[in-house]
């Protein structure tokens, strides 16, 4: 017993000394390895696989299950702001879009647009900075990823500058710089978009990895560049880019209008793939009403849009549907037809061939290449089951193209709202349809909370 106690005390003294000794190396004790469930930047951009994952993460973030700007928000909210959709069960925020009386405190504008767009921009910027510094990636991978990040950044700024006008142009990741940036003039933002897309086009591969169209390739960059030139009214450049895409031979119009939005459709230039198991598109979930007899679609097609379709237009029957609830019938967009399925059969189409044809038609018409313009327009009309356009002069042709864009691209990524805005026709068109229309509503308000958090930001005219 006594021996045992002596032994224990010696052991204890030894332990104590051991611990005191280790105290000397306590600096090491509090230096941790990075956590197992996360990866640090230095590691992420060391291997091709993880660097790819960092860029691919932007697509996952874009493909949310709520209608954020990139997962149905542009179609729905810009559709409400324009003359495409009306809210059947309006929330306060939706009413503000529909009546073009957005309050600077509107939560959708801040959380579903402003915040989401800048989140993607941060990730793209972070990828670009890290890729530039990366030394161990395969050259092909590094270039392609740089191209994708540039493309995605340009894509986000395209919507920011269109919706808000001047916006802070954030191109780095240092929050101390970014937090106090004021709004950059829209011209500079447009220039940045153009530069990014040109650079992206140079380095992106001809075909996106895996052969599917769910990640940006060279043609996605060219297609968005064509649209950018069109918006900047650089007609020749717009025509050239659209021609390159159309002439690539990789895309074609799908004869059956019901098959346009299917996964890997030949018409798709870039689609977002669903990330949730069993999901298709968020748009399908929000636009298609459920089957209970009282359920109304959340958003209906406006009577004006419905009336704009000519008799026999295949798009009217394939891309719109009607549901009767409590004795009243409601028409709603039906481009996406499947809410849930495993595997997913519909992908969320962002850039498609038909738009390139319409871009080229408009760019050509503006340059007075009327015959060629009409050919492009007619290919769209014929697919829709309509006769070739009868119009002859430039002005009528441009009007016909505007009308065709309205019908072909309705409830799709807010095309109508952005078209009316870029052509200066908002006041004429919406002024005639909406009694509450005010010209200042062409731009969304900068979110109130953001102005409170960054006093360098200013508000758009009309919202003070």
């Amino acid at each position, binding site marked *: 017993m006594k021996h045992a106690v002596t032994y224990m005390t010696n052991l204890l003294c030894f332990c104590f000394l051991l611990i005191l000794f280790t105290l000397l190396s306590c600096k090491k004790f509090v230096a941790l390895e990075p956590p197992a469930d996360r990866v640090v930047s230095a590691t992420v951009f060391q291997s091709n696989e993880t660097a790819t994952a960092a860029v691919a993460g932007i697509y996952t973030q874009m493909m949310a299950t709520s209608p954020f700007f990139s997962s149905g928000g542009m179609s729905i909210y810009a559709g409400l702001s324009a003359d495409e959709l009306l809210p059947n069960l309006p929330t306060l925020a939706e009413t503000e879009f529909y009546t073009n009386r957005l309050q600077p405190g509107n939560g959708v504008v801040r959380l579903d647009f402003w915040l989401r767009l800048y989140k993607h921009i941060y990730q793209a910027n972070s990828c670009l900075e890290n890729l530039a510094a990366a030394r161990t990636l395969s050259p092909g991978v590094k270039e392609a990823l740089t191209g994708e990040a540039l493309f995605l950044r340009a894509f986000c700024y395209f919507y920011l500058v269109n919706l808000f006008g001047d916006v802070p142009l954030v191109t780095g990741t240092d929050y101390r710089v970014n937090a106090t940036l004021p709004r950059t003039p829209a011209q500079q933002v447009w220039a940045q978009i153009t530069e990014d897309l040109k650079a992206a086009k140079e380095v992106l591969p001809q075909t996106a990895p895996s052969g599917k169209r769910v990640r940006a390739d060279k043609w996605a960059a060219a297609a968005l560049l064509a649209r950018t030139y069109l918006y900047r009214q650089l007609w020749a450049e717009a025509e050239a880019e659209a021609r390159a895409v159309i002439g690539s031979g990789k895309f074609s119009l799908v004869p059956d209008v019901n098959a346009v939005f299917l996964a890997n459709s030949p018409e798709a230039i870039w689609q977002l793939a669903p990330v949730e198991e069993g999901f298709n598109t968020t748009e399908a979930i929000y636009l298609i009403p459920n089957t209970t007899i009282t359920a109304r679609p959340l958003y209906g097609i406006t009577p004006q849009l419905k009336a704009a379709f000519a008799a026999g237009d295949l798009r009217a029957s394939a891309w719109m549907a009607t549901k009767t609830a409590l004795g009243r019938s409601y028409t709603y967009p039906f481009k996406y037809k499947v809410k849930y399925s495993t595997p997913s059969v519909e992908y969320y189409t962002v850039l498609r061939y038909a738009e390139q044809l319409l871009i080229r038609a408009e760019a050509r018409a503006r340059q007075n290449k009327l015959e060629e313009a009409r050919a492009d327009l007619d290919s769209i009309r014929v697919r829709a089951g309509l006769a070739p356009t009868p119009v002859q002069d430039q002005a009528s042709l441009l009007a016909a193209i505007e009308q065709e864009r309205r019908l072909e691209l309705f409830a799709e990524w807010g095309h109508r709202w952005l078209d009316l805005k870029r052509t200066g026709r908002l006041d004429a068109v919406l002024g005639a349809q909406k009694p509450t229309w005010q010209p200042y509503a062409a731009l969304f308000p900068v979110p109130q909370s953001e102005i409170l958090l960054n*006093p360098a930001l200013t508000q758009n005219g009309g919202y003070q």
Partner: protein
Amino acid sequence: MRKLLILALLCPIFSMCQPLSVNGKVVNENGEPLTGATVAIQRATAMGPRATTDQNGNFTLTNLQLHDTLLVSAVGYETFREAIDFHFRSPVTVQLIRKISSLDDVVVIAYGTTTRRFNTGNVGRISAEDISRQPVQNPLSALEGRIPGLTVVQSGGLPGASISVQLRGQASLTQGSEPLFIIDGVPFAPNNNSVNRLSSSLSAGGAGLSPFSTINPADIESIEVLKDADATAIYGSRGANGVILITTKRGREGKTQFSLNYAAGFSKATRPVPMLNTEQYLRMRREAFAGDGVVPTVQNAPDLFLWDTTRYTDFRKLLLGGTAYTHTAQASLSGGSAGTTFLLSGGYHRETTVLPGPLSDVRGSLSLHLAHAPAHKRFSAELSASYAADRNTLVNAGLSNLLTVPPHAPALYTPEGELNWEEGGLTFNNPLAYLERSYRALSHNLTSRLQASYRVLPGLQLISSFGYNVFRVDEAARIPIHAQNPAQSPRGSAQWGGSHLQSWIAEPRLQYQYRGGKHNLELLAGSTFQQNSNRGLSIGAAGYDSDALLGSLAAAPGISFRSNTETQYHYTAAFGRIRYIRDGKYILNLSGRRDGSSRFGPGRQFALFGALGAAWVFSEERFVREQLPFLSYGKLRGSYGTTGNDQIGDYRYLDAWSVGQPYGGTTTLYPSNLYNPQYSWEVNKKLEGALELGFFQSRVLLTASWFRNRSSSQLVEYTLPSQTGFFSITDNFPALIENRGWEFELNTTNVATGVFQWTTRANLTVPRNELLSFPGIETSPYAATYVVGQPLSVLYRLRVSGVDPATGVFLFEDANKNGTIQAPGDYQVSGFAGPRLFGGVGNTIRFRNWDAHFFVVFKKQTGATYLNTLYTESLVPGAMLNQPVYVLDRWQRPGDQTGVQRYTTTPSSDAYAAVSHFRRSDGGYGDASFARLRTVSVSYHFSPHFLRKAKLQAARLYVQGQNLLTLTGYKGADPENQLLYAMPPLRTLTAGLQITF
């Protein structure tokens, strides 16, 4: 109380003619010599010779006279008084008895114990007795109202609900402001953070499953709350928010005791908010349409057309009107002999809920304490271990969308006995279906600790303690197909979650004690090594086509989410303390710690903290004793020091990426947070001064303390504009924040006769929080949130000037007179939310075999009212949602002066538009003061006569009540947690029997 004992007068009785001188020894109750005791002779006319005992407790007095009185006194002991007569012989051994006064109760402090008398710091305490009077499942709720400066708020009345604890105000803006919890020297791995990963009916308002549900209150000997710098600086970086030490029970030497305790009781919800009945609801809907100028049709008001408007279901009564039952059983075996003590105990607690259905919380616990400290050996050791398992069965849904179901909603069951979902084609949320969404959590908590000590030299001890705590939670939730509307062809889904938290700690230390003459010196030096790890896993499975398969992950057609977390926290420190007491009057306490924490970036991991405390027991001064004889105890103390806070989450300095869902077959990553390798320790400076007074032999004890805590460069989640890609970043906050206040504690013994005793304990806290400075606030993201010179909880908002009597819509003050109402231009300061004062008053009365205890807590405060919930959570009165009856005070016709604007249901209406201003206004805040009869306990102790006959050591019958009565003018559910649609705290009544063999 004042009984004196001489256990041994070791003098033989003979000879009476010796010259009178006396020598002897003064010892304490354990027979150990008492150094520095005063031995004096009192004569009728003057004081005689005096002496002080030496290191061995010996003294000699000469020149004594017959009939002198010998007085022996030492601080903390009852004075010994004995007349010298013919029987008095030298040498004499005087045994002094500790004063039986709460001043000399043992108070547990960091790495040791002290007494209230000699403490230089501020330590609040509740004892096992205080806890045993309250029928509580969670030990934290026993603290409510009992410790000045401590606010304890229960998130709701469902078993397992989390309880937030805050000491001396909001110390941190956004980061953890919970104190550090230490159980028997081992940091509790989950601290006081909710441990659930899945949501359940506990999740309202950011609350969750409390980790303290796994701690049996009956196992606790005492809970100490360390408040000021003196008490907490030795915890360094973890001490900024205070420290709560939980000490478990130990065995005592003596006869082996076997004790049994059983109690059963029932509970009802307190103050559930009454909701509109069908008639009131229908009138509200019609009024809303009329006010909006909209004609109700089957499309916009289907509830008015498709449902039977004569039906009425009181969903509040259905959901909250039930009775919960509790059963508690406790058994313990304790005892010990020469140097060895043991305690074994086991507990069982079962509690159901007031919700309909077989929901419950069951806890089983075991604990063990063994100590071996042989009297003359150098080595001693102590082992304690406790294990508890808790099974919590609740619902995987919140209450709010159940309570707001319109009162004329369709019948809950179809005539066939199935759950009903619709009437006339209009569906509704069948509350009974929600109750079918199951949730269960199994928690396991194992805490163990070994402490070994070795006396190297007399006075010098080497102590090493090792602690290990593992906390595991295993959760599962199911949404079965039959709990969903079949018209929507639903699929079943299931979720699993698990957390595994672990902490180990090793603390070797050296302790030295020197006692010589008037000097008493204690030195402590030690080091800490601590590692926490936290692993979590959660998986959601969806698409089940059969409810029978919901328990199987393999049967799931799809995975809806999956995530894991894995974090580590390493902490190391070296600490020391010097404590010097001179003459039992002057006390100095110096403590310090050098800390290293893995939560900071390289180069910023170490920091130094320290504190100085001093006290003067002026009642020991002769002039005080002579001039103020009624003052039996008086102490002035003060402390100043620094502590830190590293509760900022792990790895915030890393530029880390998390794994997202795969995209097109590729793994994906996204940035976890903005990273900032620059942030460093925040500094929290605490200053305290206090006066402690005892009158009339300490029958009245009063403590008044004043504190001032200032924190600068606070670590916060600094809000950012979202153009940075994020909402916030962990950074040092440039502002200086102060928490100051007064705390008072009064303990009185009002009556103390043999058969009747009456004592009162009261405490009061007057807190105040202030943002002292914030350079550059105008251009910061906080320009519209905080105001310099105001509390952080300032209501800097639009001000509601009432409801317009003409239009019935809320009106707001146009503070800048520019003609429009806008944030932040029209923001004004309208007071602040939070308490102005709070406290508790308890009375304990003992009469013969009876004892009764009453405890009232009170709080004067401003809080969020029902209007805040209705308008900020878009539950606008007038919509197709039921409302609390408070909304009946709405505007109806021009000229009405009301507190609630008119009903509305159309988003384009002017009344609806006012809602967005209302959210940024002070309108949702109001008086939330209350007084609550928190505890009532009445016990009957069986008479010794009966006990002898029954061969028992003790037996007691008792009745206890909790939350029996609440007095408040608050508009809402519970004034404490201010959650309108959560389960209110319960009113509980139990009865039990305790017997000891």
